[in-house]
């Protein structure tokens, strides 16, 4: 599970659907949720959570893409399995994990030190309250 601490910038609510924009150390992030618990407020901290299996990777990408969360980083590690592979990407000092198919790793010839872009759909991003103050 990827977890990034971020500050809530904007909360937009329409008809029970909520769009939350956050600023983290690495980039702006977007989460789409249904009703947002009342403890989440503009200016408050939240953990942005998404599973490795929801993180896509692109190399030499040109053109536009609908994914709201787009980050740029460098590959730290590739652990190739038979069908699935785990790729770790450093995004400005934060380690993001991605689980993609080994087939994709080979097609993109992903390797250590490669510059890549990573994507997470906003509807796959969860927000969690930061419960402790000093951690």
């Amino acid at each position: 599970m990827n977890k990034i601490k971020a500050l809530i910038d904007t909360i937009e609510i329409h008809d029970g659907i909520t769009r939350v924009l956050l600023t983290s150390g690495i980039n702006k992030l977007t989460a789409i949720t249904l009703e947002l618990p009342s403890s989440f407020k503009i200016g408050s901290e939240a953990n942005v959570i998404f599973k490795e299996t929801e993180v896509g990777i692109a190399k030499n990408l040109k053109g536009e893409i609908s994914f709201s969360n787009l980050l740029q980083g460098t590959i730290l590690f590739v652990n190739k399995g038979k069908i699935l592979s785990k790729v770790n990407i450093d995004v400005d000092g934060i380690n993001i994990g991605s689980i993609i198919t080994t087939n994709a790793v080979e097609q993109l010839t992903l390797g250590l030190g490669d510059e890549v872009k990573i994507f997470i759909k906003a509807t796959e991003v969860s927000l969690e309250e930061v419960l402790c103050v000093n951690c």
Partner: protein
Amino acid sequence: MLEISISKKLLGATGIIDFEVTCTFEKGEFWTIFGESGIGKTTLLRMIAGLDTPDRGSITMDGEVWFDSKKRINLIPQKRKVGFVFQNYALFENMSVLQNLLFAQPHKDISKAEEILEAMGLLALKERLPNTLSGGQRQRVALARSIAQEPKILLLDEPLSALDALTRSRLQDELKKTHEIFKLTSLMVSHDRSEVFKLSDQVLWLKEGKIFQMGKPKEIFLSKTSTSKFSFEGEILNIEKKDVIYVVTIGIDKQIVEVVVDESEVQELQVGNIINVSTKAFAPIIKIK
């Protein structure tokens, strides 16, 4: 309006429990008393009914004092105007359905009894003896009989727990309908979250004899610390490495599910852990069975 502020030492499953609850139940509301067994849910109903006596405190219904330890007031159950339905409710087996209702009425009124039976879809059974009825029908008659008592409050102690899943679900709908017709202030004991969600206006969640949470079911049961809407409590049954991922098998109620997790998460997990498993409301797929 029922106002209670009571305390009592109870012998629970894990030892002595200091039961202490203060709460106001507004007229016409359907409340569920929710929580694990052995923490005083049934005792709370029994104390309201006058079948058990609190150590201290007071119980007041619409301004009338039913119990007050300081003033030494303790009305007997018959004077409290309470309707009580249990899991295995005893009907008078030698009386017809209609006679059972008439017996319960404070002022015998056949047309009123028939009205209740009609509203609950039981009129066709009015001449039947209880032992010719199904379990679901018996519980409906039990409910009708409690309503015929013209109680100020209806106390339901897991009234549906002895029934099979289908009958139970049907009776939950009936109970909801009945509540909408008669608008009786109702307190039901249940530990079934879906039942609580379906029926209640308000939930009183007890833990270790104290109020843990109180409010509307949606506010209480949906997670307040995370935006995950699809969330269940379960137990880890197995953890297995497959390729570069791990598959965690989790028992949730009577179902077993599998969840894919990353190596970084698996280190914190152990077989036997009680965990919360959740996903966003956007991911699950619904199919009609």
